[in-house]
């Protein structure tokens, strides 16, 4: 028989067939953002005029309540930009749906921190991509380090308790993992590190920012040593091919099986890293709402079928790494049954070289702010009498 103490792999096989409702549902509330991070998964910047209204958002929360979704991950864009942010937060929690939201911290002042600290079933994740302003601001924009630290100070002063510091691991901050941990500890916070994906604006910056092969090993070793106290969103399972010891977590691709994304206009995607028509399952605005999409979309049905190991079938590590991340492959033009671009066996490099410009998808749903063309610099003229 099978009980809670059975092997993990048995559970993974069952989860691949999908659940009655997602375990981990991400909801990007808005594409509007005060920042323009170079790796933004959702290419956020400008608000989309088709954004779900307050009433529509509440109707989605009613549905999630009926589906017994225990908690949601709210993001954006910057979710706190929405005027109804606190209204939706309170509505969700009142309906028994816990909330974890990701923010850059710009809108957490002392008063808001106190309001947040008074709420139950709420987790806050402050994004930070460097333990110093130079490293962080290069990715997240000038002043964003100070903003994040200030928000953390407010949360600490308000007695919020254990918030989370969320880091996207890049080539430039991978050496700071110990420092990130120390920073989190100093705030009584929990560290969360996740994998950089070539999604959204990350499609452009990924090649310069993603960790090198040697750094992949560094991340794996660090997680083996510290992983039990660090959250990862189970995002580093492709590294499992590096050693005998599996990283903590589920170690499978949950897209459309246990995970999905609702975007600001109500479109439902297989996961937060694939905002692209190929992975759009439907919309909460369709008849039958979110539940119908989750249960009956053709895309999700396909993702819940046994997946082919494809080019990786003959590799001895496939059971450990599961072929890696679907989104990472897709956005660099590698077929979905090919190796992960960061395959630790080195097969990703070759697969990327084989991928032509035709197979590399163009990003969709770009909400980046318009590029401002700088005016030609004027030569300062000193006006005065000779």
């Amino acid at each position, binding site marked *: 028989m099978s009980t*809670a*103490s059975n092997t993990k792999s048995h559970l993974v096989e069952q989860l691949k067939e999908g659940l009655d409702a997602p375990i981990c549902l991400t909801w990007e509330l808005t594409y509007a953002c005060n920042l323009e991070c170079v790796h933004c998964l959702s290419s956020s910047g400008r608000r989309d005029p088709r954004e779900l209204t307050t009433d529509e958002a509440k109707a989605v929360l009613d549905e999630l309540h009926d589906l017994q979704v225990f908690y949601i991950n709210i993001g954006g864009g910057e979710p706190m930009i929405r005027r109804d942010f606190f209204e939706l937060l309170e509505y969700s929690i009142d309906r*028994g749906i816990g909330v974890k939201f990701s923010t850059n911290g710009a809108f957490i002042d002392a008063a808001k921190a106190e309001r947040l600290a008074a709420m139950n079933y709420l*987790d806050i994740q402050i994004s930070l991509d460097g333990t110093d302003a130079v490293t962080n601001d290069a990715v997240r924009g000038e002043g964003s380090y100070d903003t994040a630290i200030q928000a953390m100070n407010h949360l600490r002063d308000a007695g919020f308790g254990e918030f989370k510091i969320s880091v996207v691991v890049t080539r430039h901050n991978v050496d700071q993992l110990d420092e990130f941990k120390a920073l989190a500890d100093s705030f009584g916070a929990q560290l969360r590190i996740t994998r950089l994906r070539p999604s959204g604006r990350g499609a452009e910056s990924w090649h310069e920012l993603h960790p090198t092969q040697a750094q992949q090993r560094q991340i794996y070793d660090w997680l083996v040593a510290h992983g039990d106290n660090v959250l990862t969103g189970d995002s580093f399972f492709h590294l499992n091919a590096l050693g005998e010891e599996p990283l903590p977590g589920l170690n499978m691709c949950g897209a459309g099986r246990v995970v999905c994304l609702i975007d600001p206009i109500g479109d439902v995607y297989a996961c937060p890293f694939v905002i692209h028509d190929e992975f759009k399952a439907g919309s909460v605005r369709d008849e039958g709402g979110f539940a119908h999409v989750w249960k009956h979309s053709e895309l999700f049905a396909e993702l819940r079928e046994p997946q082919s190991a494809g080019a990786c079938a003959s590799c001895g590590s496939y059971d450990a790494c599961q072929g890696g991340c679907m989104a990472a492959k897709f956005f660099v033009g590698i077929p979905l049954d090919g190796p992960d671009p960061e395959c630790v066996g080195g097969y990703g490099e070759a697969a990327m070289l084989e991928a032509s410009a035709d197979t590399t998808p163009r990003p969709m749903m770009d909400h980046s702010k318009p590029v401002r063309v700088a005016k030609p610099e004027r030569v300062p003229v000193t006006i005065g009498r000779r």
Partner: protein
Amino acid sequence: MRRLLTSDHQRTVLDSRLVLDPQVALRPEPFGALAYHYGNRKLIFLKHPDVVRVVQHLDGAHTLAETLTACDVDETRWPSFERALTALTESEMLHEHRIEHQVTPG
């Protein structure tokens, strides 16, 4: 016989009167159920419908052994239930029901 061979810890689980923490929600799934603890945010998979049934029958008044018997769980399967319910206890999904004795000051 089996019970005599188990460790002290396991014997405690079988002999304990467990209740589901009020902050825990169970969501039925094809394989059994998901248990989520709103307090400590832990998520546990109950990987057999019988485990779910047993958890739902815990009332704090009867020991786990009595509940297993009442739920018609064959004694050969008890060790796996001990493990499953120990895991649930360690993650604070279940805790021992304590009978409060009222003491009237003299």
